């Protein structure tokens, strides 16, 4: 049986950052990275741009093989985990081989969540999580968009998260007629506050996208090459292309019987340790605790996956500079039809007390929209459409719980310069 000091399962953002952190402290330990894919690692975030054709599929690898070689890492493709034996520190792979580990990182990410809709399994639908998914969708999208002389087909996107909205835009740009169906009351729920979402939605409607929020699909049935969807109001939509973008679920199938606790993701402590000895987890596979300690959505955020990967890697290698992971903060940068929307942190909850403060500018149809959310004079969230600021600085101000009450007006007026000036002083 092969044995490595470190085994990293998964080669996306969390796994790769953990690798970097391990090597930064332990130059000699043996490391294996097991990737279930058959190609160099690719970020899910870049896939919409593959669909749109902006990215060539051979120019998106996060790392080249020579990088793994330079790090003296045994990088293996098509190596999927089948079972984990934590008592004996062994991993069984899908091909039956076993690998022993000194320390193990679970960074297997997430897979598309398929909602329980009647008839969905009987029709052809797309998801967007892997490069294969993206290539398939790219090919179909151009077909649906229609050749000359044939009417453009209709594409239906289930879910108005970032994946769904990106795909909807791509499909519109390709020439398709597009409908987006979202169960919750706004587009990009959990990413943007209602007012920002309304602006984004308005731009999509303006581009001819049918946006149905607060609606459910009750049934799907085949119709020729495509399908027919029945909505909760009883009305129907025909689709030549159906994309299911209803969120993700952690990839944990191989953890059955391992004793590792999974509750909507692998449960970890502040150093990304699971309940099992010498097993860490990071990235989308983890149930990310919210920095705010409330029900604010957390996890599924790329920079968060990187932070978790770094924390896990430092913890695994015993790096004395290790700091506890502070918890997830929602953080999104979203470009759509030439506009830019940014969000960091949380919105004020319903029925808030006097310690909360919400400042808004551009509420009524102005060019730009910005909302600041403060609690006890400290930044909780900032949401903007076509207002530039540095999300990384806002993130830091939230994590440090910096008192900004006295600067609230300048922050609202010019969030980029005001936050930069404040942060510049804090770095000294």
């Amino acid at each position, binding site marked *: 049986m092969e044995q490595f000091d470190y085994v990293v399962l998964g080669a996306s*953002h969390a796994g790769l950052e953990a690798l970097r952190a391990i090597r930064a402290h332990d130059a000699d330990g043996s490391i294996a990275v097991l990737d279930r894919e058959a190609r160099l690692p690719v970020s899910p975030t870049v896939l919409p741009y593959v669909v749109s054709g902006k990215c060539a599929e051979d120019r998106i690898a*996060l790392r080249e093989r020579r990088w793994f070689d330079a790090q003296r890492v045994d990088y293996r493709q098509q190596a999927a985990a089948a079972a984990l034996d934590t008592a004996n520190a062994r991993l069984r792979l899908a091909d039956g081989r076993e690998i022993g580990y000194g320390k193990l990182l679970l960074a297997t990410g997430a897979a598309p969540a398929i909602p329980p809709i009647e008839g969905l399994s009987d029709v052809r639908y797309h998801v967007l999580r892997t490069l294969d998914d993206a290539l398939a969708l790219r090919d179909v999208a151009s077909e649906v968009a229609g050749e000359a002389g044939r009417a453009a087909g209709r594409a239906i996107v289930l879910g108005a998260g970032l994946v769904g909205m990106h795909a909807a835009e791509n499909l519109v740009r390709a020439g398709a007629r597009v409908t987006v169906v979202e169960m919750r009351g706004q587009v990009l729920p959990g990413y943007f506050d209602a007012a920002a979402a309304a602006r984004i939605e308005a731009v999509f409607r303006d581009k001819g996208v049918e946006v149905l929020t607060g609606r459910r699909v009750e049934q799907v049935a085949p119709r020729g090459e495509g399908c027919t969807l029945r909505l909760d109001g009883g009305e129907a939509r025909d689709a030549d292309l159906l994309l299911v973008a209803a969120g993700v679920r952690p990839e944990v199938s191989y953890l059955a019987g391992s004793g590792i606790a999974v509750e909507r993701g692998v449960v970890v402590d502040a150093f990304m340790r699971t309940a099992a000895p010498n097993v860490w987890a990071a990235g989308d596979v983890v149930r990310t605790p919210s920095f705010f300690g409330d029900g604010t959505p957390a996890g599924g955020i790329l920079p968060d996956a*990187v932070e978790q990967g770094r924390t896990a890697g430092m913890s695994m290698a015993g790096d004395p500079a290790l700091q506890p992971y502070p918890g997830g903060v929602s*953080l999104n940068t979203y470009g759509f039809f030439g506009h830019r929307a940014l969000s960091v942190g949380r919105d004020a909850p319903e029925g808030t007390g006097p310690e909360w403060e919400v400042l808004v500018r551009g509420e009524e149809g102005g060019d730009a929209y910005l909302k600041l959310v403060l609690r006890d004079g400290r930044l909780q969230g900032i949401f903007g459409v076509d207002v530039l600021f540095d999300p990384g*600085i806002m993130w830091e101000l939230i994590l440090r719980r910096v008192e900004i009450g006295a600067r609230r007006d300048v922050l609202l007026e010019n969030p980029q310069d005001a936050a930069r000036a404040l*942060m510049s002083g804090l770095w000294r």
Partner: protein
Amino acid sequence: MSATPTIAFDAERCDGCGDCMSACASAKSTDGNTAQSRIRIVRDDEAGHWGVALCRQCGDPRCASVCPAAALAKGDDGIVAWDAERCVNCLICTAGCTFGGIAFSADEGHVVKCDQCAGTPQCVTACTRGALRYVTAAKLYNRWGELEDLFVPGLGGCQGCNTELIMRHTLRRVGPNTVLATPPGCIPGMGSVGYNGMLGCKVPVFHPLLTNTASMLTGIRRQHKRKGRNVTALALAGDGGAGDVGFQSLSGAAERGEQILFVCVDNEGYMNTGAQRSGSTTYGAWTATTPIGDSARGKAQDAKNLPLLMMWHGCEYVATASTAFMEDFYAKLEAALEASERGFAYLHLYSPCTSGWRFPSASNIEVARTAVETNFAVLWEYRREQGLTLSRDIDDPLPVTDYLKLLGKFRHLDPAQIAHIERHVAEQAQVLCELAGMQPREGERIVCHPSDSMAVDLDQ
């Protein structure tokens, strides 16, 4: 990965004139509009100071870690480079940066960041206030990194001690053509002479008595010279081996103008043997032999100023240095090495002792820096031809208490003792100022008048 030069910003000197932004915009933007500058000077009215947003060319750039398209990467030149072809304009890099160093430019239609103008940053050139500095110390580290490390990989210093840094960097530069003397103290204790019959370094090394280091080096240097070999005679000694027990041989060799490079690593006491006082120990400091009790309040005498004493010997070269100011240290090491070809060169390095002075092991460099910034340890340089010059401005020091409060050995000080130390620091600074103020006139030396080549040269 190589270290990278950085553009340093001094808020105290910035008056917000914006010349840096104009220079950047005209160098980098399409239309010269300062809105497109990659360095942003911003005002914090609340705090009343100017701030900066600029790429730091981080060692482990988070903008690159979070980039889903591998469009950002730190190159071999140290610059975090942006690849237009790969960038998908997702702006996630702007979430990874906490310095405002990479941001979307509406005019360019994508993110922009500083690339340090291929080694001549225009913003720095344009800054007439001295608020921006192009710090190239990293280049020195890189160059030093290429020199051979002549000590064994493992030296057994206390955690956080800067002596290993001093030893390795010194011997790297001085090079293999060296005979090294390390008298009793922390340096042989750390393993310079080796253990168990194995050498601790790749050059001939010996372990003189505390008293005779400079005498033995004198003989070795002269004998090599007689045989026609030009080797560097190097001492790495503590303050006891240099200034107390070792002083008579040191003074004699300096006065004779022996061609020796003598490096004193001053941790202000006999720290290797349990932190006893030395002549270099500060007034009021706790040591094992100057305890704190009902009547005893630490050391009752002021430290002697060993580097000044050495200067009055009329050495070729005398300088003080600190590991918080490595560029300065490197420059002085260079000068000292060169001077040791002509005569006696003495380099005095401040070495805060994490265990003996009682401060956290992570703060060594910070303690060293504060010592300099409070004028507790003044950096200066003496060349026989030019006299004494101050290496940095000492007119506006931080309060001495900023330094004292960092160290456990001063925790017991009463106001009278603090006042005594403050007075002593001010007096020493005044003396140095006056010495530095005596500018030599053409063909005339003021500070010291050693007669030329009084050294007895046995070869002649």
